């Protein structure tokens, strides 16, 4: 186990040399820097927090920490869900939020270079003004791109376009020693040694600090149609999903959710989004799909054939959103699921397992059966198209220690089942601080040792984001 030194006044003076006026110490540190969106995985104030502006500043700070054996934790917007940016050993927090510039578009190569603190929404909007789409579309639009890359964030459009990893071309990285290096390039293929770029993607700030990113863009689709598809029950809803692909439909997004979670989101938004019954039949669950293409003329027949198939397979009806206003309405409810749950819940934990698409129905049945053994409520929704489920454990009445104990048992059971079905324990949220134990259980000692070995090569003194992903304190 690594031991670290405290940040002394001498070290603070050294840091001041690198970033004059921006070294915030002790009680002056913004309490937000002690946690991410999941405080259940621990809250710990860092000794020092610094809002950085340049790669050189980051390198200067890290070098001082490396020489003095001080832990460094990088954070963006703090929207993570696994305690990934919680400075569990104190030390220095580096915040990238002010490195928020979109630096350059290379439209001939469909690439954009950004600083890591640019928000996902900011890039998405800006790319559209250049006629381009940045396809990764995680629910949290206020996350930073640095954070998205560090967790290999997925999101709604992953079913057609893939996750963040597929859009990372190159990056500038500050290593834990303070050295500055560059991985990747704007080319679309490479067979040039180990892919250090891909090692960085999803490494959750444990291998290096990303200070610049070159991301791939695609031409923005010109037409978009969403379908809202109600079903009498979840089983009918989920069992349709593989059939959508077997019939060669390629939705850009394919989400499923039960009526209860829709209602809590509607309460949060203050208005009803979708009908709760059709011709006197109560809806149990919904699919929400989006198709994109070059024109409405191209999409109309696809949408018609898809709708026909969905109704044949048991949908109660198919509703269409094809105007900007209606598309916005249709996705507003989906985008507020987490906020809706957070608002109504005192104790909250979650997991985001991913299973093969044809196992979603099996898996959900298992979760439903298992949850009855516990005192907390279980709510879930997910990216049906890629088998990624977000499962929330919620309680407003339980004692916290008891809640944690029961959730731990529940998670172990459902993670084990996910692995049995050929899944993985996290689809897009990452391991962070909260899921290290479950990752070890899932991948076994050999793979954990490989990951720890890689960590050691990048970070011999183990100063970067300690206690995360594959390392325990």
């Amino acid at each position, binding site marked *: 186990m690594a031991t670290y030194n405290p940040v002394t006044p001498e070290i603070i003076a050294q840091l001041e040399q690198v970033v004059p006026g921006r070294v915030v110490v002790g009680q002056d540190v913004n309490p937000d820097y002690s946690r991410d969106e999941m405080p259940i995985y621990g809250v710990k104030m860092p000794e020092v927090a610094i809002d950085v502006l340049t790669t050189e500043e980051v390198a200067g700070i890290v070098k001082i920490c490396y020489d003095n054996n001080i832990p460094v934790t990088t954070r963006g917007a703090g929207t993570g869900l696994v305690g990934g940016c919680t400075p569990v050993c104190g030390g220095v927090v580096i915040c990238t939020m002010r490195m928020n510039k979109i630096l350059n578009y290379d439209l001939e190569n469909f690439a954009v270079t950004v600083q890591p603190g640019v928000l996902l929404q900011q890039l998405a909007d800006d790319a559209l003004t250049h006629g381009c789409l940045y396809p990764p579309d995680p629910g949290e639009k206020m996350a930073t791109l640095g954070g998205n890359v560090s967790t290999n964030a997925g999101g709604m459009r992953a079913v057609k376009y893939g996750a963040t990893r597929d859009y990372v071309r190159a990056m500038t990285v500050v290593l834990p020693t303070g050295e500055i290096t560059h991985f990747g390039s704007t080319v679309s293929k490479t067979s040039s040694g180990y892919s250090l770029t891909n090692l960085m993607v999803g490494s959750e700030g444990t291998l290096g600090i990303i200070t610049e990113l070159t991301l791939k863009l695609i031409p923005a689709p010109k037409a978009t149609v969403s*379908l809202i598809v109600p079903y009498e029950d979840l089983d009918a809803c989920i069992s349709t999903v593989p059939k959508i692909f077997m019939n060669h439909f390629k939705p850009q997004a394919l989400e499923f959710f039960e009526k209860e979670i829709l209602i809590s989101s509607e309460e949060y938004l203050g*208005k009803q989004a979708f009908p709760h019954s059709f011709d006197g039949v109560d809806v149990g669950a919904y699919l929400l799909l989006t198709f994109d293409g070059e024109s409405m003329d191209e999409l109309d027949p696809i949408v*018609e054939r898809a709708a026909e198939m969905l109704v044949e397979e048991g949908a109660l009806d198919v509703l*269409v*959103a*094809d*105007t900007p206003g209606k598309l916005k*309405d249709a996705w507003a409810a989906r985008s507020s699921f987490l906020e809706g749950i957070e608002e109504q819940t005192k104790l909250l934990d979650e997991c985001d397992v991913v299973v093969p698409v044809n196992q979603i129905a099996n898996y959900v049945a298992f979760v439903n059966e298992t949850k009855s053994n516990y005192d907390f409520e279980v709510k879930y929704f997910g990216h049906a198209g890629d088998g990624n489920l977000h499962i929330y454990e919620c309680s407003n009445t339980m004692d916290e220690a008891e809640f944690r104990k029961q959730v731990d048992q529940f998670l172990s059971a459902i993670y084990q089942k996910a692995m049995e079905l050929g899944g993985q324990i996290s689809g897009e949220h990452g391991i962070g601080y909260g899921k290290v134990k479950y990752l070890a259980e899932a991948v076994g000692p050999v793979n954990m040792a490989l990951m720890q070995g890689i960590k050691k090569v990048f970070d011999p003194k183990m100063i970067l984001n300690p206690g995360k992903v594959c390392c325990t304190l």
Partner: protein
Amino acid sequence: MNILVCIKQVPDTTEIKIDPVTNTLVRDGVPSIINPFDGYALEAAARIKDKDPDTRIVVLSMGPKQAEAALREALAIAADKAYLVTDRMFGGSDTLATSYILYNAVAKVEELEGVKFDAIFCGKQAIDGDTAQVGPELAEQLNYPQVTYALEATSADGALHILKEGEDGNYIVSVKTPCLITFTKPSFDPRFPTIKRKMAARKATIENLTSAELTNIDPTRAGLKGSPTKVKKTFVPPRKEAGVVIKEETGEESAQKLFELLSEAHVI
């Protein structure tokens, strides 16, 4: 019940760009939508039909041929039949000329449909012109009672019961049919069309009414010629800051509070 819903196709923007030279709207590159308030009027009609499936909803629009897209969307959402009033002679009409043409069109649609509409639903105003005049002017031409700023409408006992937005609260106003109602933004959105309705709407025939059909129209009262309004200048008004509402237990306390606030602001 027979309801006629008047809709207008408008550019999808809350701040219309205006050509500084010609003082006309720049519509290039801006997608067209159903005027949102007209969408609420259509939803209000659809909600009456939900309760009474015998209700027939007819939509009427005036505009260029492209406005058929808006009518098809209305058919997909809830309407049973759509009419488009379109003729070069009607272009450039101000609100007076528009309401005059619509008045004649209502009579023609009633003749073609073989019914008398119990109610005419309009949006309170269009988001491009923002005059809020056409609905009330049409009611005057028809000599119908009108209720403006409606949020919801229910039909019972030969009358419409309207939940109406007011300055200091909402009212319920009952009005005998035939009548004209203009709708503002309620707490709900218009419904999503079903795929079946969407497909049917794509194939539906939209009846065009031109000056050849609307033979009662006096050409001197339609189009630019029939429009007394002359636009001298248009501008976006500055946003008003929200006012302060003083609501104490008694009038005396409210006066006291007002006195304190005015003193603090050094105005008295």
